[in-house]
């Protein structure tokens, strides 16, 4: 995926002499090539999401899909929101916010490596990049060996392309949704499949196993208990499960890390 280093140096050396418009063109093209796998992934996932949201939520307009994709750009969150929109009365605004925090807490961590570099970018570009910082985009721009203006151009292009793919995919799906020639019964499985795929990829790393096992087993127990003892309330168990999971994980945190809890407070206090 990454171009060889020698080639990259060559591009930089050539572009220093060429006029500014020309100078960024190779980087734009490289950014497009680097984002091709994301094109395939986002288009399929976007279409799946669009079809899902239109068929599951009655009266959902394609325009809403576009706005939602443009301002959220988060596959897992949007898939989860389908379930919320379907049973909208059962979810309060605060519940939705908490669920969004839980699902997307990882994005907070993604921003950390870029703090120093992005601070020098103009504010509109920085906020655009922050908006588009997804799993896939993060992976691509982490792997980029560029520096300075070329890096900025590359990162901006990758983020822009990825947001565009996602919006195009979801709107296409939403427009297709009600005109599919076959029965869409069972399409809701795509949501589960997406989560399973992400989980499998995460579990390739040994360090993620404990989190996955704790998360999965706690949720299984909580939902099973709720279904047996409090039928009808089982769809409100997510928060309870998450609280238990965080508690368990903090208990298991390595001791050296645990006593640094106070560090967070110190950080916040001295802002």
């Amino acid at each position, binding site marked *: 995926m990454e171009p060889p280093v020698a080639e990259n140096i060559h591009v930089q050396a050539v572009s220093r002499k060429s006029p500014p418009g020309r100078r960024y063109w190779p980087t734009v093209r490289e950014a497009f090539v680097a984002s091709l796998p994301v094109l395939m992934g986002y288009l399929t996932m976007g279409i799946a999401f669009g079809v899902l949201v239109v068929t599951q939520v009655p009266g959902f307009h394609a325009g809403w899909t576009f706005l939602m994709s443009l301002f959220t750009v988060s596959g897992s969150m949007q898939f989860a929101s389908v379930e919320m929109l379907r049973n909208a009365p059962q979810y309060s605004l605060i519940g939705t916010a908490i669920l969004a925090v839980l699902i*997307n807490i990882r994005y*907070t961590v993604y921003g950390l490596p870029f703090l*120093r570099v992005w601070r020098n970018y103009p504010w509109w570009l920085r906020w655009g990049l922050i908006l588009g910082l997804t799993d896939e985009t993060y992976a691509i721009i982490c792997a980029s060996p560029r520096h300075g203006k070329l890096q900025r151009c590359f990162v901006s292009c990758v983020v822009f392309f990825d947001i565009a793919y996602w919006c195009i995919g979801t709107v296409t799906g939403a427009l297709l949704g009600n005109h599919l020639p076959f029965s869409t019964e069972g399409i809701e499985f795509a949501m589960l499949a997406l989560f399973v*795929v992400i989980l*499998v990829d995460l579990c390739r790393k040994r360090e993620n196993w404990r*989190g996955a096992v704790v*998360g999965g087993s*706690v949720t299984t127990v909580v939902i099973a208990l709720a279904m047996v003892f409090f039928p009808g309330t089982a769809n409100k168990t997510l928060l309870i499960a998450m609280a238990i999971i965080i508690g368990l994980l903090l208990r298991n945190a390595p001791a050296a890390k645990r006593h640094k809890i106070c560090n967070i407070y110190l950080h916040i206090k001295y802002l």
Partner: protein
Amino acid sequence: MSAVVIALRALPFLIFRGGQQKLPPLLDYLGKVLTAAAIAMLCVYSLASLCDFSNPNYARLLYALPATAVTVLLQLTVRNPMVSICGGTACYMLLLHFMGTILP
């Protein structure tokens, strides 16, 4: 929802605006571990929500489990999210379509 997601992404940029470059280790730890836990939680939750909470339909669980296995296997071997998601979903839809007449 969008507001929360954007705020989450912007959070580190807002908090660590000053010269402080080191991030608290606990945040680091939680960020690493919580992702897997949250996704695992969502897996179980959406698996359970396939068979309708208020009116449990356990036959659907019976179809969803093999389909999940297919998804996992595809992702482990082919390593292409697109293939895995489409394969698993097709498997579930076919099971639901053809077995649905035997086990409603």
